[in-house]
């Protein structure tokens, strides 16, 4: 395509000259960094009624810094019968909390909370963290076997059997076919048991995996701000007549603009994701990198995957999503022929995707298609969703999503070209 490189560079130049894009990117990057920052600001207060002495006050930063040092010494231990029994033993202290019933201010309920005995472990920062570390292990096991089974007779075999049962229930809940169940069982067979525990459950990689969905929305927002007016602005600037009657004013110009738009969205997405990753890993630490998602996210996830792999996978997927977001926004701009109207339509679509994060599981095909949309995909729901996509063989949602989005991007590109090539009626 003649002069494509020159046209592409000038289209990028036009984008870079727009101050609004840089302002939006800076604000979104700061917002992305601030998400993990909020976890280290603030303080923990422990009243002197419980301590019998002075109030204990720890900053969240102190808490996280100390947590990274694993005072309970649980890091690297296998989640076997010994650890399960040790945890149950440590968690012998029961407290009952009275709290309002949700949605009914006049009613109260008593909730039983089990935790490690603070009188035994002490009212110090270390004591608090040790109680938390055992509490995380306790909750991981309890979520599978139930409160009644948390006794001195519980073994690792019981726990892992409960995990298998939960996994099977999940298959039925998602409406998986026999072939899909067999495929996941083969993946689950590769899981090594007992799991190796991390002593630092709220680390940077886990946080990145959990909050990356927010980065995806930021990327969509950036694409809307940067690209809604990419095509309409030629008409608003009254340069459209000059361009349309030029030799390269049809397909080459469209391709250059489209590619420039994809580039801007991809680079903006990279900045946002790197900002979020930097915030998570620097502030919260990388110590949980090799922890299995089965410990920190969902015990019944039927495949071997570490938290770092999950985090990097979702970040990579969202970089592909940035291309799809860009293509969608540019296509809307070509349809509406106005930057403001295109922004309004895209914001409306974004709100729809946020407010409808999932469709009923009974609608298998429709629900699965919806869950794979770029602005919907993600959050930890993606880990729980074991529906597979049949393209040749079986693909998980993590594998299918980027492939489908690339196809969708190409389809939107073709639509945009057809809209661009139409000669104006007025």
């Amino acid at each position, binding site marked *: 395509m003649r*002069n494509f490189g020159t*046209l592409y560079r000038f289209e990028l130049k036009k984008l870079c000259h727009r101050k609004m894009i840089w302002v939006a990117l800076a604000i979104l990057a700061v917002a992305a960094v601030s998400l993990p920052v909020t976890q280290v600001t603030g303080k923990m207060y422990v009243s002197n009624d419980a301590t019998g002495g002075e109030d204990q006050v720890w900053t969240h930063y102190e808490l996280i810094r100390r947590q990274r040092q694993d005072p309970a010494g649980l890091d690297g231990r296998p989640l076997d019968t010994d650890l399960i029994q040790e945890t149950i033993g440590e968690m012998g202290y029961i407290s009952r909390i009275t709290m309002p019933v949700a949605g009914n201010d006049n009613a109260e309920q008593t909730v039983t909370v089990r935790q490690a005995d603070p009188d035994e472990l002490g009212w110090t920062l270390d004591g608090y963290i040790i109680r938390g570390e055992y509490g995380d292990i306790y909750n991981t096991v309890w979520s599978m076997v139930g409160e009644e089974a948390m006794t001195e007779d519980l073994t690792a075999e019981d726990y892992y059997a409960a995990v298998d049962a939960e996994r099977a229930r999940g298959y039925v809940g998602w409406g998986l076919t026999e072939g899909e169940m067999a495929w996941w069982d083969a993946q689950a067979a590769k899981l090594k048991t007992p799991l190796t525990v991390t002593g630092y459950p709220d680390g940077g990689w886990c946080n990145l995996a959990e909050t990356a969905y927010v980065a995806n929305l930021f990327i969509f927002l950036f694409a809307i701000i940067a690209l809604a007016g990419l095509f309409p602005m030629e008409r608003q600037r*009254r340069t459209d*007549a000059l*361009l349309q009657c030029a*030799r390269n004013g049809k397909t080459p110009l469209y391709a250059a603009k489209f590619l420039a738009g994809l580039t801007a969205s991809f680079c903006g997405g990279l900045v946002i994701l790197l900002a979020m990753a930097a915030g998570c890993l620097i502030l919260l630490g990388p110590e949980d990198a090799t922890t299995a998602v089965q410990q920190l996210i969902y015990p019944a996830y039927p495949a071997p995957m570490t938290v770092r792999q999950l985090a990097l996978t979702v970040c990579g997927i969202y970089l592909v999503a940035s291309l799809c977001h860009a293509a969608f926004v540019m296509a809307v701009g070509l349809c509406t022929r106005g930057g403001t109207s295109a922004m309004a339509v895209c914001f409306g679509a974004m709100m729809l995707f946020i407010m409808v994060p999932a469709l009923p599981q009974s609608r298998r095909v429709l629900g699965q298609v919806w869950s794979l949309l770029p602005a919907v995909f993600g959050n930890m729901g993606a880990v729980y969703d074991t529906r597979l996509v049949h393209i040749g063989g079986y693909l998980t949602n993590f594998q299918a999503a980027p492939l489908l989005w690339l196809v969708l991007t190409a389809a939107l590109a073709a639509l945009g070209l057809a809209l661009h090539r139409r000669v104006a*009626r007025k």
Partner: protein
Amino acid sequence: MELTIDRLSKQFGPKIAVDRVSLRLAPGVTGLLGPNGAGKTTLMRLVCGILKPTAGMVSFDGQDVGSEEYRAGLGYLPQDFGYYPDFTGRDFLLYMAAMKGLDKAAARRKSDELLAVVGLSDVQKKKVKTYSGGMRQRLGIAQALLNDPKLLVLDEPTAGLDPKERVRFRDLIATLGRDSVVLLSTHIVSDVEHIAGRVLIMKDGQIVHDGAWDKHEDLEKFYLAQFGEEADHA
């Protein structure tokens, strides 16, 4: 070399902006006159392929207006064109040269040449947003000439130019008219008087006069006579 316009019409709702216009334009300068709302700009946009006609066709040497070959030989200066404020004058020409299909070396050479012709060499590295109206108009003229067009469509090209610049531009157009088909629309009758060998007068979407005029006669009077306004002016 010939521009053929065959029963060209353009209708916007109930309003017929261009009404069954048929023309054949050979190399030379053709002036297009008419009152506001006569359809001059619409006709020019149809000739440049920016508007889709309701009926009829436009071709240049057998090439349909929608083809890339047609656009390759076309130069157009719109009446009210925009620019990229943060581009320099040189950037703008290089961008338009790339749009018109010139390779890098040819783009640089033609840009330098045309910047000198229109007197913008000294400010070529300044941003277009700092240019005066006349400077922007001259830049617009330069971009129209980048690809040595065989068909040159100019809509109010001398608007905003001072008298000296206007004379220079007239001479330039007259020179170009020797080898190209030039269609020039303007309200400045003296521009047409000096350089156009053929005059089209448009009224209510139709061509009411097509041909030369008696050069011994004042063109302005001749033009007004077409609209029955000679008595008022006298």
